[in-house]
């Protein structure tokens, strides 16, 4: 329970079904760390803030269910925050929510829930799950509310994780969920949605990384470098590769006759390569560490719609498995796609069905 509307409604729905439930909130990040990010001596970020824990506790009390805050700070820092920073420094643009889902929420947290006697966990994700008798697999499909669909972040879940998971909101739209919250009399019914990365205040992940470096005694110069164009000409300097992601236009501060975009970041040389919008178009990509959800690992090429970032409209492509168990795939889009970004995920869909996904390299 995050203290938000979605997970609160999940608790209310399950309780209405008469199932004995326990509310849990993950404490993931110490809000008192990195105080320079705090607005006015307050705490940083939104994640695990005392206000949210207060809200979650209020909901649990309203429903009359046992409620606990469980501490995953150490695991979160190792498995999510450090890889998140490493990715930026290695020229990739990470998805911390997926790392958290794979290694914390549906792993350590699921184990804790099982350990204290829960048969399943339920979360407020907008995604749908069903067991398919024909294939013997748990199949995932997009949430009924496509604008809220969160399957892009859930592509890493394995069958044994899905077997112990419920997404009770998958069939609802957000307005319906708010309506349910009011109907259930939940004290958070009118609470605004949150969008940003939970531990990064105001979405300014670069400022977060800078502050984390200062805490660790890493000098800022270590990440500074040149901005070059695709021909290798030096156009300027930048304050750190972690300030840039592929396709970004803002913050380059170089003068040029036409709009320039980040084409790539090169960690070894700390260079940021910029070019024209057309230079961002790619017709193919390779994805690694593929996790197959709704289908067994394919042995021959298949057609799918592929999303290369959360807000991307899935594009038609041919997906060719490479190696054993299709652990890697080559994806050829029918039409070139803008800003294929290493570190993001390529998630494969057949209509609403989530076939699987992997990491863009």
């Amino acid at each position, binding site marked *: 329970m995050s203290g938000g509307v979605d997970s609160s409604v999940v608790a209310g729905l399950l309780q209405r079904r008469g199932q004995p439930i*326990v509310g849990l*909130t993950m*404490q993931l990040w110490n809000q008192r760390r990195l105080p320079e990010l705090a607005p006015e001596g307050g705490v940083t970020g939104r994640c*695990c803030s*005392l206000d949210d*824990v207060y809200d979650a*506790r209020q909901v649990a009390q309203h429903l009359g269910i*046992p409620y*606990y*805050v*469980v*501490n995953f*700070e150490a695991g979160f820092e190792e498995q999510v925050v450090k890889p998140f920073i490493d990715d930026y420094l290695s020229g990739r643009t990470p998805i911390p929510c997926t790392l958290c889902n794979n290694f914390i929420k549906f792993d350590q947290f699921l*184990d*804790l829930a*099982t*350990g*204290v*006697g829960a048969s399943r966990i339920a979360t407020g994700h907008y995604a749908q799950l069903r067991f398919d008798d024909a294939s013997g697999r748990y199949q995932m499909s997009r949430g009924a509310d496509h604008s809220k669909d969160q399957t892009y972040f859930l592509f890493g879940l394995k069958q044994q994780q899905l077997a112990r998971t419920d997404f009770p909101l998958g069939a609802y739209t957000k307005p319906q969920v708010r309506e349910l919250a009011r109907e259930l009399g939940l004290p958070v019914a009118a609470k605004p949605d949150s969008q940003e990365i939970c531990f990064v205040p105001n979405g300014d992940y670069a400022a977060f990384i800078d502050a984390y470096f200062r805490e660790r005694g890493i000098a800022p110069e270590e990440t500074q470098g040149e901005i070059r164009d695709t021909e290798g000409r030096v156009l300027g300097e930048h304050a750190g590769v972690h300030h840039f992601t592929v396709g970004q236009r803002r913050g380059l501060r170089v003068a040029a006759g036409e709009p320039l975009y980040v084409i790539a970041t090169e960690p070894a040389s700390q260079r940021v390569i910029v070019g024209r919008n057309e230079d961002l178009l790619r017709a193919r990509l390779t994805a690694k560490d593929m996790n197959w959800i709704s289908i067994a690992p394919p042995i021959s090429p298949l057609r799918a719609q592929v999303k290369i970032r959360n807000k991307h409209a899935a594009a038609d492509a041919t997906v060719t498995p490479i190696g054993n168990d299709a652990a890697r795939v080559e994806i050829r889009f029918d039409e070139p796609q803008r800003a294929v970004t290493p570190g993001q995920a390529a998630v494969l869909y057949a209509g609403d069905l989530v076939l699987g996904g992997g990491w863009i390299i």
Partner: protein
Amino acid sequence: MRRFYFDHNATTPVSQPVLEVLVSALLEVPGNASSIHQDGQAAKQHLEMARRETAALLGCEPKELVFTSGGTEADNLAILGSVRANSAPQKHVITTVIEHPAVLNPCRELERRGVPVTYIRPGPDGAVDPHDIRRALKPETVLVSVMHANNETGTLQPIAEIAAVAHDAGALMHSDGVQAAGKIPIDVRELGVDLYSISGHKFYAPKGIGALYVRTGVKLRPIQFGGKHERERRPGTENVPSAVAMGKAAAIAQEAMSVESSRLEILRDRLETGILLRVPDTGVNGCAVIGGGAARTANTSNIYFDGLEGEALVISLDLKGFAVSSGSACSSGAVEPSHVLLGMGLAPERARASLRFSLGASNDAEQVDALIDAVAESAAQLRKLSPTYSYLSDSQHV
């Protein structure tokens, strides 16, 4: 579901006789103890009766007792009040790393105001060595503060020896007795302390009442400012009903102490033996062998369960109806590893894998046996899923 409460070091329920005097004081003694009329005099009379009863628990004169809102205020008043009352230009304070936050945080506040503080570590058994205190003393040391009984392990500190060492150097001696009062016999004269804090709700009085013993002659400045209550050491209208309740609880505790503490010790040992026999890879923190280790309060046991998270075990037991505790709650309510266990030199993994069981009036042998069964079941269930524990057990086969 029946609930069994094994967290008496966190707080205790108000006992029936205490409740009765509390309610009757609320109903029948409505006056302000500082008023000069007869209603005020009646309240004052009840307040002083409570002061005598509470003083008897500590072996001090009633006038040496200042009522406070609880243990935290008593500790703050003792530390900040005595250091501020000392006009020496250079001041220094000694305490230990295993103190309650109600002592540690006033000390940090002193540091922020330019008074250096030395934090002594205990030995692996949790006991502070008076020699370490002696070595830390400086000519400008004005106060030594060492808790009497630790809240997490129950370890008793050699307060009398430490007080003698402090006095040799001309420093005052404060002891946080919150976890000792009502559990072990206390005589502040024999202990030789100058300041001693207690809290009512740890011995079956209500929350929100405590007291500070201030030896006659010890200079103390108030830390809050207001009226002339409590001999100008603690302003605020006296909480007569709660003081009366604490006085009653003190009298009951004193009378029952020897019988009750033997009873609890038998139950505590039954619990420890049961868990250590039934659950592999466990041990009592601070005791290298069963029955070994430093002296401790009869009701407290702190046990490690290698390879699992104490937090998960607390939740699992809670859902089975048993209230126990692990570490300390941070502001969100999540559990942080105990600074006491870390201070004793436990590895962070073992500190996180530790539970505190603290027994009290409501517990009996049947409950203890039920708790042992529940702990064995929960630990086995959690360890099945623990990557650290499979690693531990695998490595034993190598």
